[in-house]
Each structure stands twice: as C-alpha cells, then as structure tokens.
C-alpha cells in the first residue's frame, strides 16, 4: 500500500474508517473543532468566555450564544480541550504525517505551496495562493458551521446513516463547488 491508493482500495479503506468510528465511538465530524479551538484561544485571552454552571445541561455555559447552545455542550468542550472530538482532529494531523513518512504519496516543494492546476492558471507566486486559500477557509468554515457540519460530518457520516441532512448538504455543496471550480480553473 504505497503511493496513492486506487479508487477501489481507497473507497474500501475510507468506508471502513467511517464504520470503525461509528462502531467504537460516534460518527466522524471535523468542523465543530474549529469553533472549539476559537473558544480555547478566546477564553485564554479574555478568561471569562466559558464558566461552570450547574444549571446548564452540560455543566458549563458561555457568554457567547453559539457556545451556549444545546445545553452548553460546546462551552464544556472549550473548558475541557482534552475531549474525544478535539483530540481526534489533532490525531488527523499526526495520521497524515505518518502516511507521508511510510511511503504515502509525496508532494514536491512547489505542490506544497500551490497545486499544479493553480500554478498553471495563476503562476507560482505564493502570496496570491495563500490569500485565496485563506478566503476559501473563511467561506468553507462559515458555511460548515451554518450547515452544522462539513464533508465528513454531513456528507460521509450523514449519508451512511441515510440522514436527509446529508443528502441536502451533499447536493448543495456540489451544486456550488462544481460551477465555482469550472469558472475559476476551467477544464483545460
């Protein structure tokens, strides 16, 4: 299993990873942890973002309405960063690194700055690619939080449970992504 896997092997291992997560703990989700990391940073700076609250369902509450929703479950995870979902995402960084050093597909130094399709269209200037990647991140995570999940939580985990939210999200994401990619990058 060196280099990039073909679609058959790749699909099988990806499916098994999603299955294992549901079997042992719960469905995979990533985008919430951007909120939790924001909360951790915000709380470290201001110190009073989240607080213990015996009246809240989770035992924690927050002055931020979003962290306070659903009985303060996000507030609790901000107060206790060493929780399953947050460490899971840290584990993902480690896992991709382990894949690189065990003969996974390797990106060259140019690819690590911008993919080839970008360089062909917009040149090798790093700052433009970094700026656009930043804007893409703003859009992607604002959208993911508005939707209550991202590609892993809604599309993969949702559709495997036949959740209607997963189908709605997948159709919407591709309906915007395909025309956007065609306009920006073209087909050539």
């Amino acid at each position, binding site marked *: 299993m060196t280099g*990039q896997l073909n679609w058959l092997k790749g699909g099988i291992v990806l499916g098994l990873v999603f299955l294992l997560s549901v079997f042992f703990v719960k469905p995979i989700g990533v985008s919430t942890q951007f909120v939790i990391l924001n909360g951790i940073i915000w709380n470290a700076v201001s110190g009073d973002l989240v607080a213990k609250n015996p009246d809240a369902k989770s035992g924690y509450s927050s002055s931020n309405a979003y962290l306070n929703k659903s009985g303060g479950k996000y507030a609790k995870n901000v107060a206790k960063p060493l929780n399953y979902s947050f460490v899971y995402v840290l584990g993902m960084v480690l896992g991709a690194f382990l894949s690189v050093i065990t003969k996974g597909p390797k990106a060259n130094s140019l690819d690590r700055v911008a*993919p080839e399709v970008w360089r062909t269209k917009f040149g090798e200037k790093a700052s433009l690619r970094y700026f656009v990647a930043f804007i*893409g991140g703003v859009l992607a*995570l604002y959208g993911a939080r508005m939707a209550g999940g991202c590609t*892993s939580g809604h599309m993969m985990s949702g559709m*495997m449970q*036949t959740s209607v939210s997963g189908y709605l999200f997948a159709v919407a994401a591709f309906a915007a992504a395909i025309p956007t990619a065609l306009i920006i990058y073209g087909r050539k």
Partner: protein
Amino acid sequence: MEIISALCLGALFGFVLHRVGASNPQKVINMLRLTDLHLMKVILLGIALASAILFVGLTLGIFDPARLSVKTSYWGVIIGGLLLGAGWAVSGYCPGTGVAALGEGRKDSIFFIAGGLVGAWLYMITYSAFKGTFLLDKILGGKVTLAQTPRESYAVLLDKIPGIIPALIVALVLGIIAWRLPGKIASD
C-alpha cells in the same frame, strides 16, 4: 482511554485521507472541474460500503444504535452547504482534508485553516442574529432519515418498510455509480 482512542481513530482517518488523495487540492479541484473523478469514486464507494455494513450490523444487533448521530435538517444546511462548496472549490480544501494537509506539510493548508478559524469565529458572533429566522427552521421534522433505524426518536421518510431494504438499495446505487464513473476525463 477515550483520549487514546481519539488519537488512534483520528490518526487512521488522517492517514487514509492522505492515502486516497483527498488532502491533495489538485485532486479535489480536478474532481470539481470534472477532469478526474477518482475522488468522487472513492467517496461514493466509501459511503456505499459503510452504509451497507452499518445497516446490516444494526439489523443483526452488532452495532449499538446509541452510537448513531443523525444531524438536523434545516435551511441552513442548504445555504451553508452552498457556501462550503464555494470555499471548497476555491481552495481545494474542506475542513477535514485541510487538517490532513497540514500534517502532510502543505503550506497553503496553514492559510486555509487560519481562514477557517476566522470563518468559524464569524459564525460564532453572527449566530444570534440567525436565531428565530427561517435559516434555523427544520425541514421534514429535523432529525430525519430515509431508512428506518432502531432509534425511535428519528423521523423516517420510508417508515413502512424495514430500514435495511432502502439502505441497501441506496448503497447499491451509489456503489454502481462509483464503479461506472470514469476516472480521468480528457479535456477538450
């Protein structure tokens, strides 16, 4: 124990995202501009396989239904999905694959993640403005699935037939699409 399983399962996910090419923005952009559907085949096969095994496992009582987590369907899923799709196409990253790309050593992923933190923060501070608007109004009863699951609190669209039947049909259809879709498409 919880932290160790989070680290292991997260690392496995990051490892696999890298091995299937999902953390490579080139592969993502080529999928979205319809020149190389490799990742599409991987995603569809992954969902199909995970879903089929999940529903067989639920029927046989091997899977604990308490581990399921169906997300709410509401208008924000669609609008947020559109926004995420645009950010995904612009950058070539979604929240999960951006995190994996960081572990892979891609520099543009740092800017995607920084943008993602800003985007998630913008949602945290604008969330209260959406409360009470149509954006958070539920669709079809909110937590709703196509196929019946052992969780009675979830609404079901096809509530007259055992869940395994529609789930396996959907999985089969997704699997066939994955198999029949072309990989690389010549651009003309």
